[in-house]
């Protein structure tokens, strides 16, 4: 379709106007559309992403007693309150993730469709995370062994746990 104004360029802007029940159509190219006074082509967003996030959080539980309690939750490291977070849509520090954990999980699920990271892990904590998981498993095994009265196995597990705990302490001091 060719622009109705200049008759040269391809029309890429299509306007349908209905005034008092009478319909009129206009097909313009980009340049002519921009020159048209009655068309306002500023598509500047009226709200920022952060405001949007804030309202996403606030809206779901506005007015309830629970909402009031939650809004007062404060991050112990940076002192940001949940109410402030809801307003600005940005977290204050890495500590906020723990402080607001209860509310963040559903929010993240809403944004990303998931609340669990499956990507890259920092090399440094890679070791630490694996270590912690292993230790946790040994402790469970120990509990089980005691329940089953397998004392020989339990003693062996206890020694391994002690050794790992010692290693962890030394690591921290380093």
């Amino acid at each position, binding site marked *: 379709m060719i622009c109705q104004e200049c008759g040269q360029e391809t029309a890429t802007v299509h306007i349908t106007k209905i005034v008092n029940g009478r319909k009129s159509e206009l097909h313009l190219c980009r340049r002519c559309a921009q020159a048209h006074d009655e068309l306002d082509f500023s598509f500047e*967003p009226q709200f920022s992403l952060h405001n949007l*996030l804030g309202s996403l959080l606030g809206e779901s539980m506005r007015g309830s007693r629970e909402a009031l309690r939650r809004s007062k939750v404060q991050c112990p490291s940076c002192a940001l309150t949940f109410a402030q977070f809801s307003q600005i*849509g*940005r*977290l204050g*520090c890495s500590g906020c993730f723990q402080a607001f954990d209860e509310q963040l999980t559903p929010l993240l699920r809403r944004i990303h469709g998931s*609340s669990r*990271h499956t990507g890259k892990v920092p090399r440094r904590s890679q070791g630490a995370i694996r270590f912690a998981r292993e230790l946790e498993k040994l402790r469970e095994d120990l509990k089980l062994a005691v329940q089953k009265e397998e004392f020989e196995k339990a003693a062996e597990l206890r020694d391994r746990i002690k050794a790992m705990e010692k290693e962890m302490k030394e690591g921290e001091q380093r």
Partner: protein
Amino acid sequence: MKEKQLVFSKWIEGNGPEAETVISSRVRIARNIREIPFPYLASDAQTRRVQEKVAKAAASQKDAFRQFSFKPMENLGALEKELLVEKHLISPYLARESQHGALLLRRDEAVSIMINEEDHLRIQVILPGLQLEEALQEAERYDDLMEAELDYAFDESYGYLTCCPTNVGTGLRASVMLHLPALIMTGQANRLFGALSQVGLAVRGLYGEGTEIIGNLVQISNQITLGQSEEEIVRNLLGVTRQVIEQEQAARQALLNENRARIADRAWRSLGQLKYAQLMSSQEAMQLLSDVRLGYDLGLLKGVDRKLLNKMLVVISPACLQILAGKELGPEERDMERPERLKKLMEQYKESV
């Protein structure tokens, strides 16, 4: 500053794969240092400490960072900073509003590490053409180097912790800058953009968030950063980009078959305007450059190449014009300076061929 150094960046070379449709591929990853509040909430002393820590991390790995220069924002002039924005090396926020913001820039300008942007660290890689996987690899390499010296804020279940919940997880934003004249001209673009948003991708103009599409340049990027691995995110975007390229190429072929003379005429006329006009707004220049680029890509026009067209895209922007002119210019003066600079670039190119 010499023009050559000024209008230079890795992506401007215009020589990557699929360069007919893809101007550049970009990957950026957001990282924060544990125990220090995010920049907008951090004190003056804390943001300064972040700057020092990152500078030290780079300085202590001399071999890996030999090609980098460290540029604190407070040491740069306003125009210098804006030029970095125009070349997509830093964000407007870092240039204008950051507290102790700084940049680590690799000499080839393919890698830029922003310090004290919305997050403590934003590692960015821009390459010409469709090179998302390569860009990711390069970004991860610098991420690993930084991690060796810095204690990152990381949570086992949330992943990398970021200031904005929309970046949590991988902290990864991958994007491609596409030139889609045929899809836009034939009115297919809007449908495509709608479909992209349904698969979790965002569509934006040349200068990112909240900017309109000018010169048929469209940026597509991932929205989701949590629950998918870095490789998955990049592979998804790559797959979609390949489809968009295919559609754009099909639309171009259709235009060529039906309107060959009209497209050629428009390309040559636009080149004529770029050569002989005396006054030109940046929006007009971008549209003309798009026409010429399409003509060149379809083999209808000679006398230019992609590198020249990319250079022209940068040289028309306000800060670049003012630096070249050596003085501040108002909007009208810039409209006069713009065609002058374009003419010079084209003359230089002619001499070099």
